[in-house]
């Protein structure tokens, strides 16, 4: 049953265009916005009334929950590099955006959240659906605004756009009281607005000291973070790595910034990262970190992380320098320009170094080879397990296709077994670790780039947090492929309980999961259940070829764990249950800690 809307679009008079709501739509169009993700409601009705007249210019994708709208905006932004716009009404609508805004803040994703608000004369009266969203979003946005007069609408939207995208990107939230949307303003839309300029160009001194440090290195390592993707600096990073023949690992956010098929690639490092990547981090003498913020998931305990190495930290945000780890050389600026400058500075040193045949590279290559052979074994062995499922999909998709993930075991298995070679093709919630991110982010990604296939590798736990957006896929004819790694558990927590809490499985078991195939059916979409290893490739190919969103529900081994793993608060050397470098168990680590008089 569908209810098509047929209505003539109509000319908007010059007088009407002075009404706040039309200033909003007109400014958005001028900023190049053609898609917004949102849900209407009392306080945002005027804006949506204007959207009705702008249907040809701005497409509103009517999500089913505002969290979905925010994540879709994130997916859109991460793929396109343009800010994603999400819209909600006041109060509960705006509060539902919060998870996505917080997620965007942690991962430096440019989104603009616009929500209605009660009229200015009601502000502070605890009016119906009034929530102080400026207060709520203050700690999780780069900046936020409340527009109390229509005179400020155009200027604020333009500022928000700049703030969201310039320098280190991030979310901006705009609260628009209803009367600002309905009153008129004679102020024309400004041509340009000024905000403080970020530092883009690094200092020559910092580049020269960085170059010198690199040239003096015996065991260099590059870490390529999310900043490399944001600043489109993949080529520059590749050039640096290849010139030096220096091994390079990425963070989860940086996955895809350097081709993982490249001989110098070590894959993703960190808590559940590749063993050889973490081995390289522990043993390098010069660490070149680009556009990464040394999160605790990367460093483990920071004191021992920093031992025995010099750190070159390249970042656009000066506040990241020295926040978590010491920087021996700080290069502040846009990653692309920093790397271009660094290449020149290296030439200036007049020295040539290539680590291709060094002991260091040889050792790492060796470790990598061993780790990979273990991976191969892992993929082949046993029944329908996640390493197999993810590697199968990895091999069936094109490199330009986009992979999104939820949060949990499937995400960590994806970072280990899904090979990505292009930037902006791996979209995952890093800093915030937001379950439910993957599916709506995939919708946003597909809207940003309809020419490729978008696969959402998800968990049964994650998927159920935002599954209602299936309706949007059907309605808007947006095709994504949710592949659910269904183990009937909140698997990552179950793994923790197994490892650190004597298998006391508290609140992790989904004993009555829905049938996801039937769920798809209920949304009038196809669904496939995969119960055997041999069925997976066929099922995925079918979903891939289908014209509409097709759920692939993969019933994977239930009590599997992602190894290796860094116990929380531990040092990188305490990573457990690897195959090659870190072969200890948690019991070994505890014993060794006790011997050293540590808790």
């Amino acid at each position: 049953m569908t209810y098509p809307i047929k209505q003539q679009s109509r000319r908007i008079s010059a007088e009407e265009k002075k009404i706040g709501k039309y200033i909003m739509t007109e400014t958005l169009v001028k900023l190049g916005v053609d898609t917004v993700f949102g849900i209407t409601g009392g306080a945002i009705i005027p804006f949506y009334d204007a959207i009705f007249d702008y249907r040809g210019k701005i497409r509103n994708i009517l999500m089913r929950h505002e969290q979905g709208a925010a994540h879709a905006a994130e997916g859109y932004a991460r793929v396109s590099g343009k800010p994603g716009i999400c819209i909600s009404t006041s109060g509960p609508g705006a509060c539902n955006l919060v998870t996505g805004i917080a997620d965007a803040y942690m991962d430096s994703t440019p989104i603009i959240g616009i929500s209605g608000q009660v009229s200015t004369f009601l502000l502070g009266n605890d009016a119906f659906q009034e929530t102080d969203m400026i207060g709520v979003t203050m700690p999780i946005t780069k900046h936020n605004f409340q527009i109390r007069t229509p005179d400020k609408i155009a200027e604020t939207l333009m500022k928000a756009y700049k703030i969201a995208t310039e320098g280190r990107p991030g979310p901006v939230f705009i609260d628009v009281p209803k009367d600002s949307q309905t009153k008129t303003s004679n102020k024309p839309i400004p041509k340009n607005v000024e905000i403080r300029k970020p530092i883009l160009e690094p200092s020559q001194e910092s580049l020269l000291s960085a170059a010198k440090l690199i040239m003096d290195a015996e065991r260099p390592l590059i870490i390529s973070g999310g900043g490399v993707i944001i600043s489109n600096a993949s080529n520059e990073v590749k050039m640096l790595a290849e010139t030096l023949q220096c091994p390079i690992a990425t963070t989860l956010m940086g996955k895809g910034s350097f081709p993982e098929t490249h001989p110098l690639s070590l894959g993703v490092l960190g808590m559940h990262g590749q063993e050889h990547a973490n081995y390289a981090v522990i043993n390098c003498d010069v660490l070149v970190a680009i556009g990464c913020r040394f999160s605790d998931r990367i460093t483990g305990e920071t004191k021992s992380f920093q031992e025995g190495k010099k750190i070159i930290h390249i970042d656009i945000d000066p506040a990241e320098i020295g926040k978590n780890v010491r920087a021996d050389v700080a290069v502040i600026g846009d990653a692309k320009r920093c790397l271009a400058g660094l290449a020149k500075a290296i030439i200036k040193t007049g020295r040539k170094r290539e680590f291709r045949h060094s002991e260091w590279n040889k050792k790492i290559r060796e470790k990598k080879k061993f780790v990979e052979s273990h991976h191969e074994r892992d993929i082949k062995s046993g029944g329908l397990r996640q390493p197999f499922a993810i590697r199968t999909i990895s091999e069936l998709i094109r490199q330009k296709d986009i992979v999104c993930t939820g949060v949990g075991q499937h995400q960590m298995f994806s970072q280990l077994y899904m090979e990505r070679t292009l930037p902006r093709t791996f979209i995952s919630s890093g800093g915030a670790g937001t379950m439910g991110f993957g599916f709506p982010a995939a919708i946003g990604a597909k809207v940003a780039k309809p020419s490729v296939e978008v696969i959402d590798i998800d968990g049964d736990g994650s998927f159920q947090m935002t599954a209602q957006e299936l309706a949007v896929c059907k309605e808007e004819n947006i095709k994504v492929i949710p592949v659910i790694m269904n183990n009937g558990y909140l698997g990552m927590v179950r793994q923790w309980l197994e490892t650190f809490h004597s298998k006391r499985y508290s609140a992790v078991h989904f004993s009555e999961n829905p049938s996801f195939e039937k769920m798809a059916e209920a949304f009038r979409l196809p669904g496939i259940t995969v119960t055997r290893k041999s069925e997976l490739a066929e099922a995925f190919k079918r979903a891939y070829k289908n014209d509409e969103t097709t759920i692939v529900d993969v019933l994977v081994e239930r009590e599997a764990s992602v190894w290796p793993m860094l116990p929380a608060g531990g040092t990188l050397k305490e990573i457990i249950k690897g195959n090659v470098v870190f072969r200890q168990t948690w019991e070994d680590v505890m014993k060794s800690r006790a011997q050293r008089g540590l808790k």
Partner: protein
Amino acid sequence: MRHTICILVNDEPGVMTRIAGLFARRGYNIETITVGKTHSPGTAKIVITVFGDDQTIEQIEKQVGKLIDTQKVYELKPDESVIRELCLVKVNVSGNKKKDEVIKYANVYKNKIVDITPKTVTLEIIGEPQKIDTFLELVKPYGILDMSRTGITGILRESPKQ
């Protein structure tokens, strides 16, 4: 160590909340905070004193510097700046000769008497926080009935060399 940080901000509603919120969520303890207008319209000045090592202070300056409404952040180092605080203190002077003694102390310290009753004397003390602390110690035995301190404000000294 105590540091005094001066922040120039856009004089917009909510700026104080942004700054105070940032301090709270990053775990920096504000000891005092003062805010007021400056000579240039649209710019307000916030002076904050905070305890922390050099690294913490550097982080604070950078984090505050990131706020969109922040124009400039700098430290007011003790040897390079003039630091002042105002304190109003109401002292109990009921009893033999107490009033005379308190007034005498006030005069020595060049504090102003701003209110006087048979049983109380209210004084205005302006100076560096240490001076205020010393004076308060002095009158404490008489009984302090009430007290209001503004928190620290300050300004950079000009270098005499130029």
